[in-house]
């Protein structure tokens, strides 16, 4: 099982974004180095029609944000998004839209409070996503 670590403050920032956006889904980029998230970049959910259970960010917007992070010395490790009033498990829709070799962190927000945080990676054949271990030591300290 692979592992994704969060540096101090990084997971807190993800949770703050998820709470601030509730009851809508929020989305952002996880960046860092060597499998540890040290920076996040909140993105704007473009799905105005169904923001409570869908997110989308256009390719150019994502690419520009990632280029800025990479220029600052970060590696793109994956993306996070929230599931308002829904478990932190990936949906078929998440799997259909996922890329391999990246971490997909899902934050479940239940009634305005953080309920759960899980991370998933897409299999090479796209048949499923596998859970990965979250190392929150940095975040807790």
């Amino acid at each position, binding site marked *: 099982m692979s592992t994704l670590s969060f540096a101090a403050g990084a997971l807190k920032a993800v949770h703050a974004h998820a709470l601030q956006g509730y009851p809508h889904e929020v989305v952002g980029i996880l960046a860092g180095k060597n499998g540890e998230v040290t920076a996040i970049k909140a993105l704007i959910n473009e799905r105005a029609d169904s923001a409570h259970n869908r997110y989308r960010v256009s390719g*150019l917007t994502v690419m520009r944000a990632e280029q800025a992070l990479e220029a600052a010395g970060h590696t*793109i490790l994956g993306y996070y998004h929230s599931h*308002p009033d829904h478990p932190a498990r990936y949906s078929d829709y998440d799997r259909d*839209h996922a890329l391999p070799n990246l971490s997909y962190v899902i934050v479940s927000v239940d009634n305005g409070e953080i309920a759960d945080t899980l991370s998933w990676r897409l299999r090479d054949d796209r048949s499923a996503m596998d859970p990965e271990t979250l190392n929150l030591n940095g975040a807790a300290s």
Partner: protein
Amino acid sequence: MTTVHIPTPLRPYTADQATVQIDGDTVGAVLNNLTTTYSQLGVHLRHPDTGRLRSFVNVYLGDEDIRFLDDEDTAVPPGAELTIVPSIAGGNSTLPTLDHSEIERYSRHLILDEVGMEGQRRLKAGKVLCVGTGGLGSPLLMYLAAAGVGRIGIVDFDVVDLSNLQRQVLHSTSNIGRPKVQSAKERIHEINPHIQVDIYEEALTSDNALRILEPYDVVVDGTDNFPTRYLVNDACVLLGKPNVYGSIFKFEGQASVFNLGEGPNYRDLYPEPPPPGLVPSCAEGGVLGILPGVIGVIQATETVKILLGKGNTLSGRLLLYDALSMRFRELKLRRDPHAKPITELIDYQQFCGIPGVSAHDEDDAEAFDRIDVVEFKTRWDAGWRPYVLDVRRPAEAEIARLSFADKLQPHGEVATIAGELPRDRDIVIHCKLGGRSAKAAATLAGLGFDRVFNLEGGITAWSKTIDASIPTY
């Protein structure tokens, strides 16, 4: 050879190369050669069942998105660069399930790749508000109900009138005189009992618009007047909801999708309303009964596409339809960078220059008099014999006319016959409802006529109050 830029997460499948050199005359050919060479890429770029590019895979030729060129048929010139740019998308699937009768009912949708079980469940989860249940709302509501949109809100304060039935196919002869929202709800449930119908038997106003729109995913504008159209637009902008727009006049219609994502809204198309009276209403100008059928069905199509998240909507495009020449045209729409931001709902009657109910009484600057049909009849019976000028169009006079009218001249042309009109006699001007005749009265007053009366309510009021043998239309 074409240089293809590979996004970071897919580089493990191209031997960690950021760019690769691939042959091909078109974008599609380059991509096919790419996935032949690097076979593990294929499943991530294309959907294995349909062979189409996955929805999150955007391809740029130089700096142009191929969706705005010829898609995969776009020719690739020598030395060009292709860039694969994934968008990101996802979300939970708390979608409602379909029971067996629903699966049978929607089977022709379910076997479409673009709809399928997921799409039909999205339609069932969809919440759409339709403002107006008239010409546009009729086909729209019937098709949304049949398509299985789970929750439909309808706003209308009107009752079904005989003159509605030429185009408002949602309502029937047996419903004349009943509230339109009631008639609409019953018809929707006859079509599809699975639909939740919310009715709002009230006028949409700046006070209630945000409350009424709030629960819905998509708002459809089926209104027939400018104040409500601006109100619907501004409320959608404030709430971040897509606004599916349609309008009709005589033989011509328009449709677009406003405020979808970062797309333009109605104020980017028309920052200001036209001067009052410049654009006649359907009651004044007439409308081909089938026209709202075409436009309303286009609005229904766009609504369903937005709920499904499929296809290219009319966002950023204004579709124009002319029934007489049977032609569709399309104009590009962009956000106006100089547009004033919409920050609150305002008084839209005032914004559109329409005087309030009390404004007539206070408007002592008006240079002509007003007379209602009862007073006219009383004075007529007492022997008053004014010159009566009908300013409607000849087609209307063929439907109904006042027997004592002296002359028929459309209201825009009254100045041309000023020389024929008496200056030593009272002149009473009438039209269908009193709007056009007021304009004609103002014109004559401006030419120095000082004994001009506008017949309030027009021939319609005369028919309803004085002489029922004259048909209303």
